[in-house]
């Protein structure tokens, strides 16, 4: 076979040379067109492949699993139950409790977090010595692992030997049971979130502030605006898109809050306290799926959370009057 080709090739190539050249040119231009048309797809393909494998498929499969009774002991055996996993959420006291907790902890953490971040950014925006140091310092909590931070906070918020209670006692307040009080535990969990995320938001605000043109401040100052008035009437309006962005991101984060309440329990399961007083939706989902081993029910909770985020997004869009 190989002998034949060797023998044939010198004879055949001159005869077909011109044809081959033309064909090559056609081929080349075709390839060029393909390259032009297809290579963008090839460049974005990795993203879409990964998104399909790790984003879209899990999302759809979770939706499919939510319509079944599935146990982690045998994930292959799925029994169709229709919408039962969703309808049962209506009378699931634990679900509503978790939803309430998610909302209150979300408010308790997001509002102070963004306000403090705004103030911090405003302070960092001043010309000050060692500003790089402060900017890095503000970001360090964000770089700390949730687990490490939460474990330290568990000690700080200890009932018997915690530093917070010790500090309270020096100003004459009785010891607070940070684990068991409903509001107390939610404040404690929120504190961890605020501590971790304030610096991150502050840097985002700072970046936006530095993009505000200086002449706006100049003319405001000429008009006799005080520092506070400049902040209210120049900085904040200029920051509106950024504030909206951080609100969205923080809301998503608050909805999915999981690590802090899980570890705040001192490592004793996903109940979120003896009375489920700081069990968030994320934690309840985890408890159903990985403690009680009911994957179907957990999937339904996951989808309910997703739908709720869509609802919130829709409501915000309505309030803000159309898409931006």
């Amino acid at each position, binding site marked *: 076979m190989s002998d034949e080709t060797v023998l044939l090739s010198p004879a055949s190539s001159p005869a077909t040379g011109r044809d081959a050249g033309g064909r090559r040119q056609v081929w080349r231009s075709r390839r060029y067109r393909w390259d032009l048309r297809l290579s963008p797809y090839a460049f974005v393909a990795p993203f879409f492949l990964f998104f399909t494998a790790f984003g879209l498929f899990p999302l759809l499969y979770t939706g499919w699993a939510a319509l079944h*009774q599935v*146990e*982690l*002991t*045998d*994930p*292959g055996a799925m029994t169709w139950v229709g919408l039962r996993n969703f309808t049962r959420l209506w009378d*699931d*006291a*634990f679900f509503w409790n978790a939803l309430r907790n998610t909302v209150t902890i979300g408010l308790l953490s997001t509002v102070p977090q963004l306000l403090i971040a705004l103030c911090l950014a405003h302070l960092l925006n001043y010309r000050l010595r060692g500003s790089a140091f402060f900017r890095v310092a503000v970001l360090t909590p964000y770089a700390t692992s949730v687990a490490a931070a939460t*474990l330290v906070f*568990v*000690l700080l918020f*200890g*009932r*018997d*030997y915690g530093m917070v209670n010790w500090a309270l006692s020096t100003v004459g307040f009785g010891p607070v*049971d940070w*684990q*068991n009080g409903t509001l107390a535990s939610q404040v404690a969990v929120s504190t961890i979130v605020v501590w971790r995320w304030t610096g991150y938001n502050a840097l985002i605000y700072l970046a936006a502030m530095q993009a505000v043109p200086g002449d706006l401040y100049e003319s405001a100052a000429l008009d006799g605006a005080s520092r506070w008035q400049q902040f209210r009437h120049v900085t904040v309006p200029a920051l509106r898109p950024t504030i909206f962005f951080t609100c969205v991101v923080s809301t998503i984060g608050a909805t999915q809050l999981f690590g802090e309440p899980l570890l705040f329990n*001192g*490592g*004793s*399961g*996903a*109940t979120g306290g*003896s*009375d*489920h007083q700081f069990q968030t939706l994320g934690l309840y989902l985890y*408890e159903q*799926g*990985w*403690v*009680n*081993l*009911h994957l*179907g*029910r957990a999937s339904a909770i996951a989808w309910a959370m997703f739908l709720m985020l869509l609802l919130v997004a829709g409501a915000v869009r309505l309030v803000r009057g159309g898409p931006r």
Partner: protein
Amino acid sequence: MRARSRPSSPAPLGALAVAAAAALLLAGCSQDPADPPGQGGAGSGKATTTLTVGVFGAFGLKEAGLYDEYMAQNPGVRIEQTSIERNENYYPQLLTHLGTGSGLADVQAVEVNNIAEITATQADKLVDLGRAPGVDKAAYLPWKWAQGTAKNGATVALGTDIGPQGICYRKDLFAAAGLPTDRAAVGALWAGDWNKYLETGKAYKAKAGDGKAFVDSASGVMAAVTGGSAQRFYDDQGKVAYKTNPAVRGAFDLAARFASEGLSAKLQQFTPAWDQGFSNGNFATVSCPAWMLGYIQDKAGPAGKDKWDVAAAPKPSNWGGSFLVVPKAGKHAQEAAKLAAWLTAPAQQAKLFEKRGSFPSASAAYRLPTVAGAHHAYFGDAPIGEIFARAAEGVPVTVLGPKDLVIAQNLADVGMLQVDQKGRSAQEGWDAAVAAIDNALDQ
């Protein structure tokens, strides 16, 4: 089995030599290259087989040097361990891996609260270790053996340790409250009845005053009491029956009285606050399974030395313990079965007890001097081998069920914790626990 069938020579060098011989023989039988037919690998081995062992927490096998010993005896085998800190994270992962048949270690550990679910739902994916070479059914406590055996008769899990309980107590606090400090006299205070333990607590509190608690937590008492009854959360037919089982409700109500009488330090076990409670010495007693002694020693620290002692519990009871299983999907299932058999053999269990305090589930090990004659220096040189062996042999065969962990956890961390820490009544706590368990069991 093989160890016994061999003619044993008289041991002129005394008990120690017998132990050494037993260890050698037991080790020898699992090392015997003739044992697995058609598999010359391990003994004659040029080719290296790597076996992985998946465990949770500080399981102790590696720490006690057992892997090194096995590798020294079997030059063709290398053992690697992967460990996940908490069983709550380890167990779901194990289930997922068993479901997909990938990602599994050759040998996997299983906690006792999960063993019923494993034998009920995963038995077909596990090797029958009851027939593995070197496994001697007679060497194990019958109930531990039964717990690892599936309905079809296959013993898919071999017991490692068990958790026979004693009561650890502070001698200095007992003396200050005018109670006896000698462990025999202390054990006699409550022998045979958990109510006497409560009465002792009241007497202690009357003398010691309000600041000092008698027990660490109410749920610790509940776990200890329920661990002593044959039926807990399931009945003989395998149905969930904790709601109507007087033993469970009785244990719940008794433990709740420790809270309502103000005898509890209101701590939650295995939390940082509990650890601090040990080092600050603000409770006088704690129900302690054998494996907890090391934990107490760590947390109470050098300052607690000569203060702690251990006495017999009112009734024999068990808390915790583990098993080893070998998934069929593993590449070296046969070699892994040999390793699991060796690791759980009496001689190795004795070593685990000696080094780590995990009490053997192989009753044959109780006769070995390292177990029978074991004393714990930290606990006033208490004869822990003797105390825990007696507790272990008095433990009834507990009826286990697949959802033991979920039920036990909610009774403790929801129901009893509300009573203990939030001051709710026993009835309120019970109702909250039942609601949580009903929700958890509903598929």
